[in-house]
């Protein structure tokens, strides 16, 4: 398989990778414009290319877009793509402290490392990884969602009740629309557009971005800018040195991302949140998380970029896309005459291996793109509030409209924004609401399907508990929930991540 390395060394492929990374990062950093959309926009351009070049640029855009989501997460506290939700927790506080460049360089380095581990996982471990993906049945999805919900405890340090209220609100919002199983229409109040439910990205923009913008306006008299950006020398080197001292954090986050990525239907958002949660719980100073430390940014960004490689595992080995952007890749592969599935490696091995090597190179180049980009982007926050606010609102409106070309999504975004402003004042972390919204649907589908399977088999025990991965997930849930007790026992002090 190494004979294909040579093919990649053509100079125009490098140019394609760099263009793809930059284009992806630009689209990814705009809230509402996702990696999926970036790829869908690009697919027609690849018609004119040979399949190898087409795939290389698509791969680079995918990597770039998932990275790009961190830019808005760090600078304005709004995840540019759902993958970057957990990046806001520490990224934005860093910006407020005037350390935007630290956060951006961390994100670039973390993404690069995570992406590399993900790409190597794809290259070397696909056959093993895919067997894990296939073992994931309805009960496993249910327990994975439950595990994800335990992250609420980390996000609600000040008050667990408030966190649970947020999570429940999110779960309730997730029930709007046609039931994923059974097809009943729920809580649409006669609006046919609502049958499709609330889109996650609409909720993200509303809940994260608008409250922040309103607060910026409230503070405008005292604080004309979010933070001052001062050009400092040697930031990047210092950050990289600091991160290299935490190899376990980086590797653990990447492995979480890779594993979540290979499970079709569980995306970078869950990867980032889980990895952040575990980083908080295993830290010696968990109280520092959320106040703006680079470890928080690294945990999230390393994990969500490792997810890219992971999500391509089921796509290339089975023809089943692991994430929405991978679904667009599937379409692109087919248009180029490749048939993702069991035969892909034997029939089109040359193209596939070249593609995998290009992903590795893309992730190395990503660091440099992110590194130089950080300086440019960090200057953005020097804009005064009166210039920044209209610009952000403008992006919010466009972003929420363009997801499904539906005006109702824009109204929903404004609704979420006003709602989010008040819940934030009440001390409910927007992350908890979003977590409920993401995981409610996965839990519901898994639960109802498992019930159906149990009835056919005649045993709830056999379906819900007596399966190896289910059992592991249940144990993990228990550990996560009881963690404060364990930690308290060892440290006499209950560790809490700073929620806000």
């Amino acid at each position: 398989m190494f004979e294909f390395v040579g093919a990649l060394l053509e100079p125009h492929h490098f140019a394609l990778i760099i263009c793809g990374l930059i284009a992806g990062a630009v689209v990814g950093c705009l809230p509402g414009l996702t990696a999926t959309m970036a790829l869908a926009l690009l697919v027609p351009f690849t018609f004119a290319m040979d399949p190898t070049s087409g795939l290389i640029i698509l791969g680079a855009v995918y990597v770039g877009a998932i990275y790009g989501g961190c830019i808005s997460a760090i600078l304005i506290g709004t995840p540019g793509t759902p993958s970057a939700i957990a990046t806001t927790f520490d990224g934005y506080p860093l910006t407020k402290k005037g350390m935007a460049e630290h956060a951006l360089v961390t994100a670039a380095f973390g993404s690069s490392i995570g992406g590399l581990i993900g790409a190597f996982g794809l290259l070397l471990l696909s056959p093993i990884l895919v067997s894990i993906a296939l073992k994931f049945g309805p009960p496993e999805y249910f327990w994975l969602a439950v595990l994800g919900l335990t992250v609420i405890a980390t996000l609600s340090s000040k008050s667990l009740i408030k966190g649970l209220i947020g999570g429940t609100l999110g779960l309730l919002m997730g029930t709007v629309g046609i039931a994923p199983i059974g097809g009943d229409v729920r809580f649409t109040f006669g609006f046919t557009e609502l049958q499709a439910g609330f889109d996650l990205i609409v909720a993200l923009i509303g809940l994260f971005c608008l409250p922040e913008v309103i607060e910026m306006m409230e503070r405008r008299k005292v604080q004309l800018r979010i933070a001052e950006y001062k050009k400092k020398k040697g930031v990047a080197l210092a950050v990289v040195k600091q991160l290299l001292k935490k190899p376990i954090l980086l590797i653990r986050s990447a492995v979480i991302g890779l594993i979540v990525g290979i499970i079709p239907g569980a995306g970078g958002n869950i990867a980032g949140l889980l990895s952040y949660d575990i980083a908080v719980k295993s830290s010696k100073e968990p109280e520092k998380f959320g106040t703006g430390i680079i470890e928080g940014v690294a945990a999230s960004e390393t994990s969500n970029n490792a997810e890219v490689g992971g999500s391509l595992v089921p796509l290339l080995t089975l023809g089943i896309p692991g994430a929405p952007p991978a679904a667009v890749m599937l379409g692109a592969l087919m248009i180029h005459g490749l048939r993702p599935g069991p035969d892909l490696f034997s029939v089109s091995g040359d193209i596939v291996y070249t593609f995998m090597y290009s992903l590795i190179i893309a992730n190395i180049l990503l660091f440099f793109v992110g590194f130089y980009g950080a300086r440019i982007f960090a200057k953005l926050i020097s804009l005064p509030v009166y210039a920044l606010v209209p610009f952000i609102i403008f992006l919010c409106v466009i972003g929420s409209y363009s997801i499904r070309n539906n005006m109702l999504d824009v109204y929903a975004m404004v609704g979420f924004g006003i709602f989010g402003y008040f819940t934030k004042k009440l001390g409910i972390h927007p992350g908890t609401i979003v977590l409920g919204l993401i995981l409610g649907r996965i839990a519901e589908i898994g639960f109802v399907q498992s019930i159906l399977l149990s009835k056919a088999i005649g045993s709830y025990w056999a379906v819900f508990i007596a399966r190896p991965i289910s059992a592991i997930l249940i144990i993990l849930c228990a550990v996560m929930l009881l963690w404060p007790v364990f930690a308290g026992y060892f440290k006499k002090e209950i560790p809490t991540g700073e929620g806000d």
Partner: protein
Amino acid sequence: MRKELLILVVLVGIGLLIAGCAQQQPKATPTPAPAATPTPTPVTTSVAKYPSKSITYIIPFNPGGQSDIEARRQQPYLEKYLGVPIIITYKPGAGGAVAWAELTRTEPDGYTIYGINIPHIILQPLVKDVGYTTDQIKPVALFQRTPIGLAVPIDSPFNSVEDIIEYAKENPGKITVGGSGTYTGHHITLLQFEKLTGTKFTYVPFTGAAPQMQAILGGQVDAVFANSNDLVKYSGKQIKVLAIATEERFPTLPDVPTFKELGIDLVESIDRGVGVPKNTPDDIVKVLESAFLKITQNPDVRKTMEEEGFVPLSMGSKEAKAYINEKVKVYKEILKEVGALKS
């Protein structure tokens, strides 16, 4: 200060550019393949004015799906035959219902056309209030068919349809059958199969073809009713296709018997095409119809479609309408029997 203003202007400009692209989505990008030189088809003489501007082709699903792949394949040909740009836009949600509800409110001028799927547009309004009815959609053409087949994992003890029927008769409800969605093409096929063979299964709905195939490959369900293109991909490697619901044997899977051969009168498929609001003038529908039919008669297009596991269709507007009406009757009866028909 002036510098900041300049930065802002540039940023807003970029934003506007992106907004333009986002609303029209992956569209006016230079398309390769057949050169897009305006060559009006002979039919256009009767309605000299149509089409005179770009046509929006709405996909009611996410990018990357079967409807998207087919539309992308057609796009360069449509631009050549109709002589105007074709803009592909996605409007996913509620299994297509959001887009089809919008179809009924759109201007009937032929400049916005919608991908339609059968049986989706028949079953959805029969089961619940989805904001449109089947007769509000005028089909322009049906061009792609995926017959539905029954498959089991490769290591399954079942080797034929008879095996499954025999086991199901002794153990009603014990066999789990996966499909995509509730009261959809796969579900209705199972309901008909149960009725025709006097058996009972447990239907487990999944949220799409991808999770459904993932479930059968991982052995989470005992069997699936699935689309031919998905079956072709895994047949003989990870799954055994036991039978296919076509009139005659499916050329891409020549060893698989039809249900009809086995004495079960089951013929079901998912058919894809395009539709417009019902009061769109016939002249306009004809222009579109001839363009779409010309594409499915192209030997290159047919060949790739067959390789991918699709059956190319060339059903015009009138024929499609009659086909839909026929299906409405059949489905109404089945849904009534299971108590799912909307009152």
